[in-house]
């Protein structure tokens, strides 16, 4: 079987004709397999959804319990047959519940990575390389300029700044699913034991993480009830990036804007966004991780999707690996 007959891009998303299912479709479909809970990958309104238990839980928290007609939980590493096509889920190391989806039929095996990273992350299972014929890799940070430093160094810079500016507050922009909880967890690992103040949009998901056994320490709502700015002197506050441009942020004393994202590697991105303390913490693979993973899968062919395809395709050419961009529409970088 040719790879392009097993999986092909369609306007709705990546489609498997023999199995009659989509992976991470961006429009409502009959049967959807979903890699992880970020909203550009996990949409509501499908007739049936197959995903890991945690991804299903997260979708339920975000969209309400009736986000799909029926749901089925995929157990990591177990094979499920769908219309004669073998499907299995494997940890992707991106956020809690994230998985790569391996699709196999008539001797052809394709792994769709969804989003993934290789840096260690205490809030989710580590990426497992799955040998395959075709590896579909994300390329959010598919340029040699993206080299993520160890996350512990970034948190150390944050804590150092908190020490240098004890009269101010540090506001960390971090996406509500995954990044925010990872930052909280990293703070704990670095020995920070004061309460972390969180924006309301983070509450449900953070609680869910805690219920899954991921200790985030004491979290308190960043609300002012009868108090004032002084309540947040020296505080570390985590919220969705958009909230910092909001009036919401005015309650904090002379805040230092921080943003936890792989994009913060580029000074101009930080400057443009008015970020004073960029924290290069990413849930996506950086350039070195991308190329190491491509080699590790042993795939003879690489399909490159959402991100900067051209550089990764070029690198594959230089390495003698067949590669092409896979033009899927509708994916953004919500996860970073």
């Amino acid at each position, binding site marked *: 079987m040719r790879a392009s007959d097993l999986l092909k891009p369609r306007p709705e998303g990546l489609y498997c004709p023999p199995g009659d299912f989509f992976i991470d479709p961006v429009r409502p479909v009959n049967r959807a397999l979903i890699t992880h809970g970020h909203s550009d990958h996990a949409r509501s309104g499908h007739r049936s959804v197959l995903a890991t238990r945690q991804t299903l839980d997260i979708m339920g928290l975000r969209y309400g319990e009736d986000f799909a007609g029926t749901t089925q939980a995929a157990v990591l590493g177990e094979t499920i047959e769908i219309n004669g096509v073998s499907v299995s889920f494997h940890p992707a190391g991106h956020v809690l519940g994230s998985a790569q989806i391996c699709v196999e039929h008539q001797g052809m095996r394709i792994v769709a990575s969804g989003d993934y990273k290789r840096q260690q992350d205490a809030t989710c299972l580590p990426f497992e390389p799955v040998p395959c014929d075709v590896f579909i890799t994300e390329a959010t940070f598919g340029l*040699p*300029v993206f080299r993520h430093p160890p996350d512990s160094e970034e948190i150390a810079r944050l804590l150092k700044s908190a020490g*240098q*500016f004890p009269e101010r507050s540090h506001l960390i922009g971090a996406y509500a699913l995954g990044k925010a909880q990872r930052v909280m967890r990293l703070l704990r690992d670095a020995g920070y034991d004061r309460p972390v103040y969180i924006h309301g949009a983070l509450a449900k998901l953070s609680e869910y993480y805690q219920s899954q056994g991921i200790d985030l320490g004491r979290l308190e709502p960043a609300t002012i009830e009868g108090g004032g700015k002084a309540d947040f002197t020296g505080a570390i506050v985590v919220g969705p990036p958009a909230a910092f441009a909001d009036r919401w942020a005015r309650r904090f004393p002379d805040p230092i804007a921080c943003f936890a994202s792989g994009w913060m590697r580029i*000074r101009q991105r930080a*400057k443009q966004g008015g*970020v*004073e303390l960029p924290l290069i913490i990413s849930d996506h693979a950086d350039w070195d991780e991308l190329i190491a993973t491509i080699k590790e899968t042993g795939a003879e062919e690489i399909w490159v999707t959402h991100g*900067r395809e051209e550089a990764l395709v070029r690198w594959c050419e230089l390495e003698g690996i067949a590669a092409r961009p896979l033009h899927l529409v509708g994916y953004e970088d919500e996860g970073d």
Partner: protein
Amino acid sequence: MVRNVMNRFAELLDRLVLTPSRNGKLTLLTDYFRSVEDPDRGLALAAITGDMSIAAVKPAMLRALVVERMDPVLFGYSYDYVGDLAETVSLVWPQPAGHIPNHAPTLAEVVGKLQAASRSDGPQVLAKLLDSASISARFAIIKLVTGGLRIGVSARLAKQALADLGQVDIAEIEELWHGLTPPYAELFAWLEGRAEKPKSAALALFRPVMLSNAVDDGDLEKLDPADYAAEWKWDGIRVQAVCEGGIRRLYSRTGDDVSGAFPDLAAAMDFEATLDGELLVGDPREATGTFSDLQQRLNRKSVSQKVQQQYPAFMRCYDALQIAGEDLRGLPFAQRRSRLETFVGALDPGRFDLSPLVEFPDWEALERLRQAPPHPIIEGVMLKRWDSPYLAGRPKGPWFKWKRDPHTVDAVLMYAQRGHGKRSSFYSDYTFGVWSGPEGAEELVPVGKAYFGFTDEELRQIDKYVRDNTIERFGPVRSVRADRNNGLVLEVAFEGLNRSTRHKSGVAMRFPRVSRLRWDKPAAEADRIETLQALLDR
């Protein structure tokens, strides 16, 4: 004290560049000076104040070094995306195989190696350093060798941080500064209370100059004209002439020694005093040269006899900081002025004259004078409080500058070039021209280039206009339709005009920026080159 590694310096640069507030920058600087050891901190200080000399590596060389080590196509994608060469190279620089840096270099080691390098082995020394450094240290190293840190920290702010560190007045630091050399160990020792204040044994040191604030709307109505003296604001170069014990120095306003470029003026400095004034060219008894004349003497390390005779330098004095060993800075301006008048009267009249006071009964009268100054090299008026002492820095209140309004010209957009960095998807650099040639056969001649002055929204509009009206492309530049019937008219504001042999039009604008978009104005009605030439001949 923490280990004084290069990474600390790199981290400091990274934070400074993104910290907008002055106080935030001061905290970061003092913290760095407090926690990093000698000599690293002193070298960092020298790098920030521009007192470090390292043989420069050209951008082309840097690019050559990196494409020896990686695929040029991947480098191209990377540079296009990042837009800044130093940053791109720092990020993509491949760590040599099997090389794990186990020793993070200190700033002192880096600077030592770079300073010891010859012009020919410089690039290889740089490459070795980059091999052994982390990403942000690589960025810092590249910034050191390409010159100009561009971190939004002035030498003065760095000195303020030193003053904060030692709880002393910044003027004390500025006055000491020129007697000190990197890595300033004795300065830090004093600031930390471990040693006496360094003695400035050197003579003819620079004394920090007094600067003025621009007049803002509503400033003048609060001030009494009787409290202020007015002078013309001369558009030359601010200089400080110091002679002490036979040592003569001519300093720029930032304290750079520029004596070598003006030997004719230095030769006439046979007095014991420190004078503040404006360097101009010509003979003050006969005629003061224009800015174009002055340009013949600028940015030269050495200057020929011929040029010295054609464009003699002189100093138009407006203040005296000390005379014959007596420090006058604490006296009111009125007293300093009368001392100055007597003193200058005894100097070579071909090389020194007095900046005349401008009499005015009220602000309205001064406004009329300001709008119609008697000489093209005057760019406005200065206001100085009669009772003000000479204070280092830019205190608000005693001195004001009230500049002439900028000139404007209506020009037609001819070429647009793509910007870099956050403007990399926009055509944001504009070459514009005015009409020249006989009636019926007019053509546009380019007269300048501007890349700011417009809002983000206007940038989007111009970008769209450029894309919709492109007639030719060459690389990042688009040629835009511009003839008598089609074209976008830009109102361009500028500070002055120089003669130029490099530009076809024969003129070069100073500080041009787009002041208005004239969507309403037909291209044929834009200005003609004669309008600009008239400004030159004035």
